[in-house]
C-alpha cells in the first residue's frame, strides 16, 4: 500500500502515541505518507471516526488501546467497543489492537469479537516489531505478536474445551474476585457458579479443591 494512509491512534497516554508516531515516521516506506489523528479517549475517538465518515475519508488503519476512559454517554466502555464500532463504519479499515493485557481470556475474547488485523501486546512490543507489524497489516494481515500467538497455540493444543462463562469465571477469579461476588458479575446463581467451579476443577484435575491451584493450572495451559 502506498500514497496517503489515514491513521487514527487511540490511546489515553500521549507518550505512547508519541512513541507510535516516532516509530511509524522512522520506519515508513518512502512512498507512504501518514496522516495521523490522535484520540485520547473514547469520545474523541468517536468524534474523529464520525468526522472522517462525514468527509468521506475513512481511516485506513486504527490503533486501538483497550483500556481507555469510557465515553461520557457510557456507550463506549473500552477500546474493544470502539473497535467494534470502527468495524461497522469502516469495513475496509485495518484495526490494530495494542494492549497491556496479556491474559488469555482477554486475548481470546478480543480475537473472537473484533478479529483485529493486528494484535500487539505492549509489554513485549519493540519499535521494529511495531514497524513490521504495521507493514504486515497493510499488506498481509493479520499480524499477532508472539505472546498472542503462544496464547492461541496453547488454547488450541489443549484438549480442554471450556465455554465463555467458565473462561470468564477463571478470569474473574484471577482478578481476585471472590466466589460469592462471581454470581453478580456473571448474572447466574451462586449454586451455578459453584457447579461451574467444580466442573473447572475436574477439568484441570485440581485435587486439593483450592482456587489457587485451579488458577495455576489454568494459567499453565493458557486459559488465564
Amino acid at each position: 500500500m502506498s500514497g496517503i494512509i489515514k491513521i487514527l491512534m487511540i490511546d489515553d497516554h500521549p507518550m505512547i502515541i508519541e512513541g507510535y508516531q516516532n516509530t511509524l515516521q522512522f520506519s515508513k516506506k518512502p512512498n507512504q505518507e501518514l496522516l495521523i489523528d490522535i484520540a485520547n479517549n473514547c469520545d474523541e475517538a468517536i468524534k474523529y471516526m464520525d468526522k472522517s465518515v462525514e468527509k468521506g475519508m475513512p481511516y485506513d488503519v486504527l490503533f486501538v488501546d483497550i483500556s481507555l476512559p469510557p465515553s461520557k454517554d457510557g456507550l463506549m466502555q473500552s477500546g474493544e467497543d470502539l473497535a467494534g464500532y470502527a468495524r461497522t463504519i469502516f469495513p475496509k479499515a485495518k484495526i490494530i489492537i495494542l494492549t497491556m493485557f496479556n491474559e488469555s481470556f482477554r486475548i481470546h475474547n478480543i480475537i473472537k469479537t473484533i478479529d483485529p488485523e493486528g494484535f500487539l501486546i505492549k509489554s513485549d512490543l519493540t519499535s521494529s516489531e511495531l514497524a513490521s507489524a504495521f507493514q504486515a497489516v497493510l499488506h498481509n494481515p493479520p499480524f499477532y505478536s508472539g505472546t498472542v500467538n503462544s496464547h492461541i497455540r496453547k488454547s488450541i493444543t489443549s484438549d480442554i474445551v471450556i465455554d465463555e462463562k467458565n473462561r470468564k469465571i477463571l478470569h474473574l477469579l484471577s482478578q481476585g474476585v471472590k466466589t460469592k461476588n462471581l454470581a453478580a458479575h456473571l448474572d447466574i446463581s451462586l449454586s451455578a457458579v459453584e457447579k461451574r467451579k467444580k466442573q473447572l476443577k475436574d477439568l484441570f484435575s485440581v485435587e486439593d479443591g483450592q482456587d489457587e491451584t485451579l488458577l495455576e493450572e489454568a494459567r499453565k495451559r493458557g486459559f488465564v
Partner: protein
Amino acid sequence: VIQLNLRFFILFSFYALVSYSQESARIRELDSVEHYINKSKAESSKSKNRLKYAFRAKALSQKHQSDTLLVKSYLNLASLYSDSENGIQHDKDLFVKYSHDALNLSKRINNMPLLALANKSLGYYYYDKSVDSAYYYNSKAEKLYRDLKDDLNTAIVLYDIATLQRSDKDYTGSELTCINALSLLDGLDETKEVLRYRALYYSVLGLNFRNLEQYEKSVEYHEKGINLTKKIFGNSDNVQNPNWNNLGNTYRAAGQYKLAIENYNLILDNKNLAAEDPDMYTTALDNYAYTLFLSKDYSKLPGLYLEALKICDSLNLNYNSVAINKHLAEYYQAFGKKDSALYYAYQFKAVSEKYYKDDLLNALRMLSKLESDSLATKHYEAYIKLSDSLLKNERAIRNKFGRIQYETDEIERENVKIAKERMWLLIISIVLIIASFLIYVIINQRNKNKELKFIQKQQEANEEIYNLMLSQHENIEEARALEKKRISQELHDGVLGRLFGTRLSLDSLNMGTTADAINSRGKYIDELKTIEQDIRKVSHELNTDFVSGAGFVDIINSLIENQTAVYKLKHQIDHDGAINWDAISNKNKIHIYRIIQETLHNIHKHAHAKSVKISFKLKNNVICLVVKDNGSGFDVNKVKSGIGLKNINSRIKEINGMLDIKSVIGKGTTVTIGFPT
C-alpha cells in the same frame, strides 16, 4: 485339680468345725452363767463358794457381752449381799451398787421383766429398813408388773405394800391393797404359790380388821386363812401357829376369852414347841397368860409370864419380852404390888424403847400412874410429848403412801414431759439446721448464678466489641485492597504506559544519529526521570500504611460520639498519634473500650455533666487515658463499691493498669487510667 479341691474341702470343713466349736463353746459358757447363778443360790453350796460362783457368772456374762445375763448376775450378787443369812456379810453399799447396776442396765437394754425384778428386790431389801424407799421401789415394781400383766408378781409386790401400809397404821389403805391383790390372784390358776399368797392376804386382812375393831370380819378372814393354809400344808409343822395366834388375839380383843384360849391352846398343844420355835412359844404363852389375866383366872399367874420371860431372856428374844414385861407390870399393879409393878414397868419401858413407840407410850403412861409426885409428872410429861409427836407423825404419815404414789406418778409424768420436750427440741433444731442449710445452699446458688450471669454479660460485651473490631479490621482490609488496586492501576495506567511510550520512542530513535534524534533522546531520558519520580511516589505510598492503627481509634471515636449523643453531652477527644494501637493486644483494647463505656455511663448516670473531655496520651511507654467531666462530683472515699466501679477496677487489673479518681463536689470528676503499652 481334684487334689486341690479336696484340700480346699478339708480346709473348709476344718474352719467350719472350728467356728462351730467356737460357737458351741460360747453357748456352753453362756449356759454356764445361769448354772453358776443357780449354784451360788443353792443352799447346798458353801457360803464361801457362793460369792465365787456369783462373780464367775458376772465375769462370763461380761465376757460374752450378754446384758440380760449380766443383769441377772448383778441381781444375784445384790441378793447375796442383801443380808447375812447365807453366811455372807451383809453389805449395804455393795447391795445398792449391784442393784443399781442391774436397774440401769436393764433400763438401758429395755428389759422390763428384769427392771421390775430389780425394783422388786430393792423394795424387798428396804422393807425393814426404810419405809419410803421400800414403798418407792415396790410401787415401781408394781407398776412395771402391771404393765407386763404379770399378775402373780404384782400380787407379791402388793403384799409388801399392804404390810408396809399396815405397819404405818394405814389400815384402810392396806385393806384396799389386799382386796386388789386378792382379785388379781383370783384370776390365776390355783397353784401352791397363789394359794399361799391368798392365805397371807387373808391373814393381813384379818389383822387390819382387828385394828379397825371389826372383829367379826377379822375372825372371818383369819378362819379363811387358816382353812386355806390347812388345804395347802395341812396342820403340821407349826404352819398354823401364827394364824391361830392372830385369831386368838382377835377373840381376846373382842372379849371372847374362851375362844381365844382355845386358839392359844392349839399352839401350845405341841409340847416340843418351846424347843422348835421359842419365839412362837413365848408369844403364845404370853398371850395365853394375858387372856387368863383378862378373864380373871389368876390360878396359873404369874408363873406362865415368868416362864415365858425366862425363855426370852435366855434366848435374847427382846421383842417378845416387851409384851411380857408389860403384862407382868399390869398383873402386879392389879394386885397392888407396887414395887414389882414398877420393876416390870421400867423393864417394859427399857425394852420398848428399842422397838415400837406405841409400846413406849404405854410404858410411860403406866409409869406415870405407878410412880408418885415428881417422877409421875416427869413420866406424864414424857408421855404427852411422845403422844403429841406420834400424833403428828401419824398425821404426816396418813397420806404418805398416796403422796409417794402421786409423786412417783408426777416424776414419771415429768419425765415423759421432759422426754417430749426434748424430742420437740430435737425436731425443731433438726428442722432449723436443715432450713438454714437449705437457705445457705439457695443463697450460694443465687450468688453463683449472679456471678455467672455477670461473667456471661461481660463476655457478651467483649464479644460485641471483638466483632466490632473484627468488622473494623475487615473494613481496613477492604480499604487496603482498594488502595492496592488503586496503586496497581496507577502503575499500570500511568507509569507503565509512559514507560512503554518512552521505550518505544527511544527504540525508534536508537539508530538515529542526527542532532534532532539526539535531542529527542535527551527529552525521553528526561521523561524517564519523571517516571522515576512517579515510581518513587508510588513506592512511598505503598510504604506508608495509611490505615494502620486507625481502626481502634475509629472504634473509640464512634463509641464516644454515639454515647455522648445519646447522653446529650458535649465531648472533646484528644488522641496522641504516637500511640501504636496495633501493638496492643485485642484483649486489652476490649478492656479499654469497656472502661470508657462504663465511665461515660457513670458520668451520665451520676454526674449530670454537660461536657466531657477524653484524652489519650503516651508518656514513657504508659498510655494515660483521662476522662474529665464538669458534673456534680462525689466523695471519692464514700463511693467505693458500686458495680460499675468494681467492673472498671477488675478490668484495670487485667491490663496491669492503675486508676486514679479525683473529684471535687460541684466542679466535676477526673478519672485517670494509666496502663503500659
